């Protein structure tokens, strides 16, 4: 009898232990999340020099998280920080690179328990606004304006980092706009010219389909991939203001505007006509399932952020010669400017925690991420730092940069612009548009209802 009770208790404990992970996920388990590994990250400043420094003698330690985990980029950041420490030996910087998804979780937990690192990246937009409103990040306006440092940056990047007339972050990593990237060979074999208008694009798609090639390659498990088609269509059909008005609830803006409906209808029309590869809603962009179609010539083009060039450079360099780029075509009768782009001018902005003991020092550290050497290294790695007058060796990146510089408007990715709750809803609903499980009207109504609810 008592044995039975004992075994029951034992089982209960086992169940409790098995379910404990939930508790750990939900709770702010503070301490566990902030340990940096100083061993691997201490800077190479000569130890003897620290006493000779004119500073207050006390070492200031800064913690720095970033998500540039690819080998070259991680080294690039470490080099920048090493230069900073070499010039300012009274600082010590703990650099901790981490994976994108893990970072998001970790940062949320750290911010919630006020243990965030001194310097950390984000994508501006909705989350940055939340950090600013919660008083988690420092206002950098003063430092940015000092000696006209701010003039070095592309204005579009600074405007993305600005909220309520204050600059909250520094745009550093990359200018990334979505464009059509295509397989030149496939276009040539099928006699296709670069489409100037949506009608051209659809004519090209028909031709490709007849040849048994999927016109567009898409991996939409990732959701933001399909969203790019939607954002461009909305922009070209309704102009740049439609979305901004709907999102900010200004000028009678609504997610039920005609442009959203038309964009949704166009996407579903394309899906029904088979313009996308099979099974796109189950494919994963991060594991390269859409690029594989492009490489093999089973698909002709893909609408993707310009980082694809650097991805292909490291993944399949032989394909680069065969890769072409053109901007999203104009829509006949649409209100949008055909030069307008969708993307981000900064893509990884760095903010400084308002809890940081030495904000000025941290800012100085940040400037080393864009010193001459760092800019050169970034360009060499196929990135476009969001600063004026960058010279690029790669002609395709130069094309992207020219198009982006000429753009009269730039729309930040919806899922980054919107508050996280709306952003996620947009991604879910746009996937449903592609999956034909919801009509454009239903999607609009859901978005509008949520926007109205959040606006209160």
């Amino acid at each position, binding site marked *: 009898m*008592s044995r*039975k009770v004992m075994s*029951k208790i034992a*089982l*209960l404990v086992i*169940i*409790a*232990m*098995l*379910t*404990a*992970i*939930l*508790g*750990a*996920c*939900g*709770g*702010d*388990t503070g301490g566990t999340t902030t340990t940096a590994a100083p061993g691997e990250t201490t800077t190479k400043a000569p130890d003897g020099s620290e006493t000779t420094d004119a500073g207050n003698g006390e070492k200031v330690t800064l913690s720095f998280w970033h998500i540039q985990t690819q080998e070259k980029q991680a080294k690039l950041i470490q080099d920048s920080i090493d230069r900073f420490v070499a010039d300012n030996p009274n600082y010590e910087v703990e650099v901790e690179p981490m994976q994108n998804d893990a970072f*998001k*979780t970790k940062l*949320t937990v750290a*911010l*919630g328990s*006020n243990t965030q690192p001194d310097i950390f990246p984000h994508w501006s937009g909705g*989350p940055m606004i*939340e*950090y600013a*409103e*919660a*008083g*988690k990040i420092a206002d950098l306006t003063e430092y940015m304006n000092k000696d006209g440092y701010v003039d070095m940056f592309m204005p579009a990047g600074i405007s993305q980092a600005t909220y309520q007339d204050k600059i909250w972050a520094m745009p550093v990593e990359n200018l990334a706009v979505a464009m059509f990237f295509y397989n030149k060979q496939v276009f040539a074999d099928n006699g296709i010219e670069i489409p100037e208008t949506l009608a051209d694009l659809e004519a090209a798609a028909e031709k490709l389909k007849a040849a048994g090639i999927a016109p567009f390659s898409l991996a*939409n*498990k990732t*959701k933001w991939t399909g969203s790019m088609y939607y954002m461009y269509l909305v922009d070209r059909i309704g102009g740049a203001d439609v979305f901004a008005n709907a999102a900010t609830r200004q000028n009678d803006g609504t997610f039920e505007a005609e442009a959203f409906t038309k964009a949704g209808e166009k996407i579903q029309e394309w899906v029904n006509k088979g313009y996308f*590869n*099979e*099974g*796109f*809603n*189950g*494919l994963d962009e991060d*594991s390269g*399932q859409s690029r*594989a*179609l492009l490489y*093999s010539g*089973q698909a002709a083009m893909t609408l993707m952020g310009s980082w694809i060039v650097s991805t292909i450079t490291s993944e399949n360099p032989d394909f680069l010669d065969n890769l072409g780029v053109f901007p999203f075509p104009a829509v006949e009768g649409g209100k949008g400017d055909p030069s307008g782009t969708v993307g981000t001018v900064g893509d990884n902005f760095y903010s400084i925690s308002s809890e940081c003991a030495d904000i000025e020092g941290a800012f100085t550290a940040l400037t080393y991420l864009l010193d001459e050497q760092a800019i050169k290294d970034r360009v060499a790695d196929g990135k476009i730092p969001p600063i004026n007058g960058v010279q690029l060796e790669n002609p395709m990146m130069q094309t992207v940069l020219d198009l982006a510089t000429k753009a009269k408007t730039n729309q930040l990715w919806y899922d980054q612009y919107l*508050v*996280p*709750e709306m*952003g*996620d*809803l947009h991604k879910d609903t746009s*996937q*449903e548009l592609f*999956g034909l*499980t*919801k009509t454009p009207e239903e999607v609009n109504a859901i978005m509008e209802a949520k926007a109205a609810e959040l606006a209160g």
Partner: protein
Amino acid sequence: MSPASTRSLSSRQRSIIGTAALFLIPAFVVLGVYMFYSIFDSFRLSLVDWNGVSPDKTFVGLANWQELIGDARFRLALLNNFKVVIFSILIQLPIGMLLAFFLDTAGKKANVFKVIWFLPLLMSSVAIGFLFKYIYDPAFGLISPLSRMLGGKNIDLLGNPSLALFAVIIVICWQFIPFYMVYFLAGLSSLPVEIYEAAIIDGATRARYFTAIALPMLKNTFINAVILSMVGSLKYFDLIYVMTEGGPSGSTELMATYMFKNAFTTMRMGYGSTVASAMFLIITFTSLITMNIMRRGGDK
């Protein structure tokens, strides 16, 4: 310890208990901090409206719980979870048992199978997720070419809302069958050899030994396996997250992925904690009820 514990404890016994308590303290501290406190904290957070970032947590009482009760997405996730439970138990346990029986009767000759069949359990879920993502790829995977060879069309599994969940369940089973195989194998080898020999001498076939003797004797092992599988399936997260992220159209959403989405993606830590707490309650009660029903059957 001695079953007849009515007598007063000797001083030696008392000192043993004291020492044991001392040695258990670290374990209890760890459990207390990382388990009981976290669980308690989840419940506390389920009563607030909090984005996980801001210093202000607004106490909203049971509003989150009310929302949860009316939340169609959560109900869908719960339903999906129960599908995973049912298929996991129906697929994993019988196959695991058969493999275990085969290994048990085949003896040393089958050691190579023991190793091979155990491999899936050693791989990380993320690696398995990626592996099967490629296997299921409708253009380059393994399934579609097979189908084309047989004159069919390309098959899209993960992108099809009505098939995606089953596609993932198959992978989950592939991953966990080895666990139950080893579990049952341990159970089978703990049965006395004499019983087996006696049965064979009495003229029983191996199949009859298995169904009439081994299975009934493994009843408790089996019950524990069912409960393990149930709890595991109810809190399942990794493969879904890697392979579908709950999509397309929510067709593979589970409670755990929904919790993660709320707490960390849409920054609704309060509501995410509500989902976590609800999961805790649902899993605990489902397990208790199942345990009771199955034990009662065993009591005769």
